[in-house]
């Protein structure tokens, strides 16, 4: 057996190991992380490294199989007898009732996704070692991203939709905790308030989608009696065949509900609102959410449930995806926050993936999910590196010229930007082009339904906007001169210099070798809380830091203040402020993570060596590694919905059209970005001002994200920025209405439902009081009366009470007869 051949006896155990390692790490970290050296980061990162190695090895096996024309669909239950019986411990215990059992299902798509999760998560762990170094809840952060990874790994391995759902929701919890990471850290003043709201928003918004998924799942279970994917695909095919080749209506309904899950998790309109606010979490978390976990889960679900989707559902899917792609891209052009641009870009790219599935190009959609994961993770981590280097500034207007200070970051970010913009030879091109191709194939191949036409026109526009706003980001951030403080920014810690400097300290520690000892002292200080050491260390650091920063002694003060803050003393005065310090390159672990991801972001479309020759001939689409290993056949086996694959005469024309369109829109977007933003800051402001002026109110609407958040009633950022002025109060909104309904019902419960109860109680008491009067006057009177009567009666009866037994017997007999007669007659 070749070592790259899948060996069911051993590989399922390896897969299981890679899946539980993060959970084991989490458990150790939660209980002991604080006490571990370096607060446990090495432990979880090395666990993740092992897990990643397994995911990559397994993925190599899937490629090996694909290149040897072997089927790669493995199920631990069928092949190795490894089942997890969930509801009942065995079929005997179930006694005729269907049991729910889970197993590992590992196919080509799963293998690709699994490796993506492993690699991205490892890079995020590595990056966080540098990025989160100063975080108060450092150990918790590592624990949480590990569990986040665990949830996504489990989701990918699930062989049934119920377990997918379980991990899906677990991921919801982890995103809640991670987006809310700063909600426990008041030193991050702006993020503190933002995260407090954003985590709830994310969980509840996705919960709406999750509920839809749950009901969709239940409907499928009701008809098919199974949650298992392969079973569902087979049964769906049979059902359609039985129904004369048509999908029954219930499948359309159920499919729409399942898609609801994707809408929530993958941030499709109108449930996209949570994703931009998820930026409140630390940047590595954003990278996780936007690349490997959360949003990818929704698209992955579509890949897993594709054969269940009727054409009607797919039209809705295509239209939703296309609309979201365009909608989010338009907003992305107006954002000034570095991370916000990337967030809208993610929503837009997810729209591409979703649209691809809707158009019948499930392979294209999944491919884009994989390539996007790499370059988007790289973009986010690069953005994190920039933010870290620019002293926690996030507003691009306050950046500029950063490439000089952060060359590695710049290179990585540029590579990923080119990839996402869709330039040939970079991974994003292959996948995005495939999607546009799919749309045109549909249109030219006679599938001239509204959704395909919409997609064929709107997706290229979205792609053009993508190229534009991504290069706008590059020009604004990395070119021109460094211009801190151009606009007031909520991210700068005006009110909290101590925190700001505290963040800065990280780079002293990592960036300058000569400060290693100071940094070390600092670390010790923070984690062990040796308050008394503080006075000894601080002055020493001060000197170093001041030297290093050319008179900007913020690092030193940061250190001093940090020490104080840890021990609960008020921060005292200090001089230097980070605003005027130059940006600096990030420490090594962060850069390694960036480079790995950037490499994959560039070559992710064609990194398999055997494929290299083919992929250079980029017009020949069917030869990327992904299309070789992941095909409809490989995904769904015998139940592959072949009839929906469009082939034939339309193919060639569509290829040419798609290729020209892709190239044109990408170049056009970059060109416009250069013309506006690439020729100096002042000029860019002038041109941009003219354009926004010409657009007038339309620009305002786009800038305000089409007021969707306001309609729902959770415009957090608007709310935060309106501090001091009028607080933003939603009048008519979904949330406002719900809370009002809750309050109204509380009133009803208290005053009407309980009011009735109290009324009964009061009535009872009134009757009681009344009857006590009655009792005294009437009943007692009656009793007295009865007493009187009895006395009288007694004296009469006394006459009868003769003491003679016979007489008594006579009375008894007559009495009995009388009673009997009375009973019988009645």
């Amino acid at each position, binding site marked *: 057996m070749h070592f790259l051949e899948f060996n069911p006896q051993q590989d399922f155990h390896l897969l299981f190991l890679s899946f539980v390692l993060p959970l084991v790490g989490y458990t150790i970290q939660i209980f002991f992380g604080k006490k571990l050296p370096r607060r446990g980061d090495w432990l979880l990162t090395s666990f993740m490294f092992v897990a990643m190695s397994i995911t990559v090895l397994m993925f190599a096996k899937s490629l090996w199989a694909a290149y040897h024309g072997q089927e790669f669909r493995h199920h631990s239950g069928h092949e190795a007898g490894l089942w997890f019986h969930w509801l009942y411990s065995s079929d005997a215990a179930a*006694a005729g009732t269907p049991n729910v059992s889970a197993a590992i299902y590992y196919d080509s798509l799963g293998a690709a996704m699994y490796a993506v999760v492993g690699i991205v998560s490892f890079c995020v762990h590595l990056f966080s070692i540098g990025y989160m170094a100063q975080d108060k809840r450092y150990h918790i952060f590592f624990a949480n991203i590990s569990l986040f990874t665990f949830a996504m790994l489990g989701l990918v391995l699930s062989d049934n939709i119920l377990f997918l759902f379980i991990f*899906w929701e677990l991921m919801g919890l982890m995103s809640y905790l991670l987006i809310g990471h700063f909600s426990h850290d008041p030193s991050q003043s702006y993020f503190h308030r933002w995260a407090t709201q954003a985590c709830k928003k994310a969980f509840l918004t996705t919960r709406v989608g999750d509920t839809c998924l749950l*009901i969709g799942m239940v409907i499928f279970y*009701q008809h098919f009696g199974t949650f298992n994917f392969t079973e569902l695909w087979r049964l769906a095919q049979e059902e359609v065949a039985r129904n004369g080749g048509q999908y029954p209506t219930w499948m359309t309904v159920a499919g729409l509900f399942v898609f609801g899950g994707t809408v929530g998790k993958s941030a499709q309109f109108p449930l996209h609102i949570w994703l931009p606010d998820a930026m409140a979490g630390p940047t590595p978390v954003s990278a996780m959410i936007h690349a490997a976990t959360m949003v990818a889960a929704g698209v992955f679900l579509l890949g897993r449930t594709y054969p269940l989707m009727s054409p009607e559902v797919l039209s809705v899917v295509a239209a939703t995806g296309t609309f979201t792609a365009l909608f989010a891209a338009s907003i992305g052009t107006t954002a000034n926050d570095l991370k916000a641009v990337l967030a809208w870009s993610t929503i837009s790219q997810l729209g591409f993936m979703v649209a691809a599935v809707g158009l019948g190009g499930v392979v294209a959609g999944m491919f884009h999910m994989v390539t996007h994961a790499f370059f988007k993770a790289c973009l986010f981590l690069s953005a994190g590196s920039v933010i870290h280097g620019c002293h926690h500034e996030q507003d691009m207007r306050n950046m500029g010229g950063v490439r000089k200070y952060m060359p590695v970051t710049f290179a990585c970010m540029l590579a990923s930007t080119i990839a996402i913009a869709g330039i040939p030879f970079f991974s994003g091109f292959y996948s995005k082009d495939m999607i546009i191709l799919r749309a045109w194939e549909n249109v030219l191949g006679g599938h001239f339904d509204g959704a395909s036409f919409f997609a064929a026109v709107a997706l290229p526009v979205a792609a053009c906007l993508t190229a534009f706003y991504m290069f706008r980001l590059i020009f604004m951030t990395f070119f021109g001169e460094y211009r801190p403080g151009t606009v007031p920014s909520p991210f700068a810690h005006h009110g909290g210099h101590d925190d700001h400097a505290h963040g800065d300290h990280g780079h002293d520690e990592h960036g300058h070798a000569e400060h290693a000892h100071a940094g070390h002292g600092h670390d010790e200080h923070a984690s062990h809380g040796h308050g008394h050491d503080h006075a000894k260390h601080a002055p020493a650091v001060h000197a170093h830091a001041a030297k290093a920063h050319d008179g900007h002694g913020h690092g030193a003060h940061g250190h001093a203040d940090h020490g104080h803050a840890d021990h609960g003393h008020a921060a005292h005065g200090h001089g230097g402020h980070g605003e005027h310090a130059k940006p600096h390159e990030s420490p090594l672990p962060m850069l390694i993570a960036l480079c790995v991801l950037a490499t994959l972001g560039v070559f992710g479309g064609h990194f398999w060596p055997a494929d290299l020759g083919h992929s250079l001939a980029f017009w020949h689409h069917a030869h990327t590694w992904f299309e070789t290993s992941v095909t409809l056949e490989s995904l769904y086996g015998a139940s592959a919905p072949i009839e929906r694959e469009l082939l034939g005469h339309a193919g060639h024309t569509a290829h040419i059209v798609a290729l020209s369109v892709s190239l044109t829109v990408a170049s056009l977007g970059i060109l416009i970005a250069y013309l506006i933003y690439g020729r100096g800051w002042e000029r860019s402001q002038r041109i941009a001002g003219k354009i926004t002026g010409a657009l007038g109110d339309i620009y305002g609407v786009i800038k305000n994200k089409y007021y969707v958040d306001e309609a729902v009633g959770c415009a957090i950022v608007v709310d935060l920025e309106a501090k001091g002025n009028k607080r933003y109060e939603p009048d008519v909104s979904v949330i406002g209405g719900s809370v009002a309904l809750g309050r109204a019902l509380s009133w009803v419960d208290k005053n009407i439902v309980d009011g009735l109860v109290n009324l009964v109680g009061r009535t009872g008491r009134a009757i009681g009081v009344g009857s006590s009067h009655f009792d005294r006057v009437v009943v007692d009177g009656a009793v007295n009366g009865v007493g009187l009567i009895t006395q009288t009666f007694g004296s009469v009866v006394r006459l009868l009470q003769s003491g003679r037994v016979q007489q008594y017997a006579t009375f008894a007999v007559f009495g009995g007869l009388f009673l009997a007669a009375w009973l019988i007659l009645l």
Partner: protein
Amino acid sequence: MQDQILTWITFLPLLGMGLILLIPKTSLNLIKGVSLAATFVPMVLSTWLYFGGFKHLTPGDFDQARMAGDILASQFVQRVPWIDSIGVEYYVGVDGLSIALVWLTTILLFIGVIASFGMEKAGKAYYALLLMLEVGISGVFVSLDLFLFYVFWEIMLLPMYFLIGIWGGPRREYAAIKFFLYTLAGSVLMLIAIVALRLDSGTFSIPKLTELAAQGKLLGANLPAAGELLGMKFTTWVFWFLFVGFAIKVPVFPFHTWLPDAHVEAPTPISVILAGILLKLGGYGMLRACFPFAPSAFHEFAYVLAILGVISIVYGAFVALGQTDFKKMVAYSSVSHMGYVLLGMGAFTVWGMEGAVLQMFNHGTSSAALFLIVGVIYDRAHHRDLNAFGGMSQIMPRYWALTTLGFFAALGLPGLAGFVSEALTLIGAYQAGDARFRTLVFISLLGVVFTAAFLLWAMQRVFLGQKNPKYLDFEEINFRELVCQAPLLFLCILFGILPAYLLDWMHPSVQNLLAILGGKA
């Protein structure tokens, strides 16, 4: 001793109570020790009973048991004549429906005793009443004689009244009387039904009555006018009288208003027991002593039950959203969660019924944990206004972590216990195969979303955001509080991952019950 284990479990606390009454009021530590022992031993016994003694029966075993005259196939049966003149027996036993609840009772009472150690006012009388309460609750779960069942039911009522009325909050008397009268009203209805059943059938034995009803011989034929009264059939009367009696306990909308008052006024340990186990008596009672006695009426009104359940789910969630009192919010969340029990039972499918039984156990652990959580902050702040806290996660991070786990268990996060029962209930209700039930499932999903909404909103208001400077000195959750919460939260996780450890026990009896009620098993 194995034959009498249920008696020991039930009456050991009574022994403890007797001992406590002999101890002078001043030796509080001794009193606490005795209460601890008197709840610990039953817990150990019931744990053994659950994991060791209880046999998992097969359908064949049920057939055998039916031949032998016990249609419920109860185990650890003890049967002694008690009041011969009216045929009352001391007849106890457990089956799959009751065993988990007996176990839960002993756990929660033990935790309740530990939680009570924090109460300064709790003295001799308090612990005596607490132990008496356990006797009543365990007794109801193990009784197989309707009269005995009723006696235990009433025994439980009395200590609860005093525990709320004496050791409660400012409006304790109002709450206690409301609780008492409400429950008593239910008891009266039950008593009437019980007497009627006795007069018709001549027996108090629950298995016998169940069997008669299953054979269609419990129609009131031996009563005047063949059981017809005011144009309603005997079975309908019996069903509604028993149902309302139990529904008050669950509580089902619109009989729920005693619950928020009782919870808000009750001291923490009593709230824990109230939410954790007393509410389950209602649901258990329906399965044990309402539906089986009037199967035809049950089928006739199953949909009404499901509607009441869904109203409770959605209404409870919305009212909880509108609360500003932490404890009241949790109380209404109980109303919402117990709605699933009714929905599942009304659905009358294996998973629906099993979801209902499972939900009773799971709600027992998660809601008990929530009330403990509320107690922790109430003990420190002496108020429960959700809007008056803030930033608690920075002051008490460990407490926050436990609360997060408790909240997510309550909102039915997959991987935690609540999800299994809610999902089974919803699937079961959907499987009822009828558009009316499907509509209900869709409506109840509103409850799923809004439960998450009010819990996370509360989380945000209490734990996240700006710290309230008044509360900076709050001490972190202490060892005693941790010991109370940790086992419950552990059970939430355990049974979320391995629901088979509950379902394997319940499943045979649920299938049997469905067969008895004349359905698809």
